[in-house]
């Protein structure tokens, strides 16, 4: 019962997380090229 609400809900959250994470990591990769290694404090 009510799976038609549960599934969109979980899709929303996990889809949202996936999209956000994807965008974040893509930005990170672009930036990584622009930043010289000596400026990477706090970034492991």
């Amino acid at each position, binding site marked *: 019962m009510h799976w038609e609400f549960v599934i969109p*809900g979980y899709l929303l*959250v996990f889809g949202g997380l996936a999209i*956000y994470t*994807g965008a*974040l990591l893509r930005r*990170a990769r672009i930036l990584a090229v622009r930043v010289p290694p000596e400026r990477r404090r706090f970034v*492991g």
Partner: protein
Amino acid sequence: MTATEESATSLEQTVAGATSSRFSQVFGTLTATMLAVFLLFALVFSPPDVSQRDAVRLFYIHVPSAIVALYLAFGITFVASIMYLRKGTDFWDLLAGSSAEIGVLFCAFMLGTGMLWGKPTWGVYWQWDPRLTSTAISFVLFAGYLAIRRLDLDPTVRSRRAAVLGIIGFLNVIVVRQSVQWWRGLHQGQTLDLVDSQLSGMHYFSFFLGLVSMTMVFGWLLLHRFRVAWLETQADAATLQTALAERQAEAADYTARPPDTGGPTTTETEGI
């Protein structure tokens, strides 16, 4: 359903060296595992509730999202904003901004799942429930905060304004929450009493798993969001070095010319 976080971790590995470190990789794997376990409990092991039926499963992500967004994320923004005004270092400013952004994301999750939960339980998508209403207001409040952060302003000006907004915004979240709760208490009985739930140990355990895994997701995202923000400032600093060199070269060009031609005397513009 588990495909999403698998893709997240594999994506992370492909960009190893961007913002991931040994710690964040281990933490990310742990988070992904935790999410998988949570999903297993939330969608498979947890029995339906007597009155809410399967809608109770929405509860497991709805409430943790609210707690993480309103208290953890905006709380970190609050503290970091205060620290920024005291210390004036980029670290605190970026932490405040990163945390607020993820907080807004979790606010959106809370609102979305809340409305989806409301339809089968209350019969309407939007009940003027204190939690839902006050979260919606907080969502807009911090959307405004993010809007200030995105403005093309002098970085120091922007950070200081954002810090003021971050501090007052968090205090406002509390005021809004209290007043809306009071309002609904006055107008009608406790909304949640309408839901005659009989939550069992399994329900509570699934909810607890949701809280832990959402907190871990928040932590992992915050780590990466902060690192991206940090890289951005460092990229700007690297650009600044070249900009400074170019600017100084301008001076050399100018003095190299014969004095009578002077500099480029174009039409009068607003001076820099």
